[in-house]
């Protein structure tokens, strides 16, 4: 079976389960429309200009915030791993921020940023950076002692060890953090659009749900799933480029 076959089987199984649930008549049809009705709504959606504007806005917001959070999060983690005083100085603040719901910041941020691009950038950056920073700083701290000692024996300085030994060894865990943050970025984008919204997919979802256009609502949820897969695939591709050696080692062992 080709590589794209399995996701297809997986998707087909999911849709079959869904349709079976609808046809079992255990839930009211107006709340849980069947697959054909959702597909019809999806086709109508894809034909509208409003949808594509929203899609472009939401994706741009999520990706922009994620990239900014990755750069700042990994940068901070490198500093924190190199100078422990930085990590310890930031630690109470990070611990305070990490469980703050980005959505809770939306209404107050509107006072500070207005409804423009900087509002979404801030909320999404805030939603992503802590997961990335924490995974990066944890991974950088738990380097293999042997690797570090070998590098030191070869005369590497502290920065060289950090960038050429500990950072590469940390990539698999960092990329897991970015993977979680990527989901967080879409969630924050949608949450901000629902709460502050006048545009974007989150606003469209809110609108369709409260106008009781239920098939369109489920179609939009499908689009969110696809967006997430798209973003996830992009992160995984970056992971293969940067940390592929780790996966190859793991694959060799299980062969």
């Amino acid at each position, binding site marked *: 079976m080709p590589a794209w076959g399995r996701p297809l089987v997986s998707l087909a199984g999911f849709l079959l389960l869904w349709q079976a649930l609808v046809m079992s008549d255990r839930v009211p049809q107006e709340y849980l429309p069947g697959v054909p009705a959702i597909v019809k709504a999806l086709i109508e959606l894809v034909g509208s200009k409003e949808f594509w504007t929203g899609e472009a806005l939401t994706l741009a917001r999520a990706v922009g915030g994620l990239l900014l959070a990755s750069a700042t999060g990994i940068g901070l983690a490198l500093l924190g791993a190199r100078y422990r005083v930085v990590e310890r100085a930031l630690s*109470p603040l990070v611990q305070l921020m990490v469980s703050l719901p980005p959505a809770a910041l939306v*209404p107050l941020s509107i006072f500070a940023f207005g409804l423009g691009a900087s509002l979404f950038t801030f909320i999404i950056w805030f939603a992503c950076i802590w997961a990335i920073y924490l*995974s990066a700083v944890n991974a950088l701290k*738990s380097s293999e002692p042997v690797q570090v000692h070998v590098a030191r024996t070869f005369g590497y300085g502290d920065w060289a060890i950090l960038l050429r030994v500990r950072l590469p060894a940390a990539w698999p865990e960092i990329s897991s953090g970015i993977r979680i943050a990527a989901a967080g970025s879409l969630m924050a984008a949608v949450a901000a659009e*629902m709460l502050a919204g006048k545009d974007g997919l989150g606003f469209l979802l809110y609108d369709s749900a*409260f106008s009781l256009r239920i098939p369109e609502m489920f179609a939009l949820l499908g689009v*969110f*799933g696809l967006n997430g897969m798209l973003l996830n695939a992009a992160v995984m591709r970056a992971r293969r480029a940067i940390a592929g050696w780790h996966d190859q080692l793991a694959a060799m062992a299980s062969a």
Partner: protein
Amino acid sequence: MTRHKQFNWPGLVFTIGLLFAWEMAARSVNSPSFPGFLAVLQALTQDAANLVTQMGITLVRGAAGFALALAVMLPLGIFIGRTPRIGRYVEPAIDLLRPLPPLAIVPVAMLFAGTGSVAKISVIFYSAAFPILINAIDATRATHPLLLNVGRSIGLSRSEIMRLIDLPAAMPQIVSGVRLGLAVALLVSVSSEMLLSTDGMGNYLMRAQEQFQIAGGLAGILTIALVSLAINTVVLRIERSLLAWHHARHGMAHV
């Protein structure tokens, strides 16, 4: 290990410095839309009883959703990670469902369960499920091949390899997944209350903002952050005692 028991002076100094800068900035602006730290503290103490009640409601819901997610998703994630033949088909479906922002399924939950606790707990369950599941899958899949080969060479049985090598190797990431799941559960507990406003901290924030009570809103945010910090500290302490060997190893790397 003594390092961990040291008091975090850099953290205290940095945090106090930050609060001081905030208060000074607020005094120089002197506007009710930018309250200083002391004004927020005042709002906090004035409304303390109500804040405790609302926070309690939020916490109970968050805990219920999290406990459900842990009970279901941890065994499931380990099973999928250990069985790549099934994982290959299930993971695309996980990737499809995972990025649905928990707040986006709020309308769905509302259709089926109204605005009460059941709707919110389902949304919380959904949100906490994926960090736990994904980390359990990732952790149990990627054991270092060298360790596996060593285990095989010294003649360990399959169950011994699972218990003595795979489990300890997977623990750090599993635990960090559980910790993330708990953080997300609390975060979504608040956010779901912002959209399905009946009671709890999310509702408190919405009311404060509707009435332009910026100091009150910040007091609510501060309460959420402080309670989260307390929970995180306890969870970290449990994590550390579970993973003492792991931290002992990374401690050695800094010798």
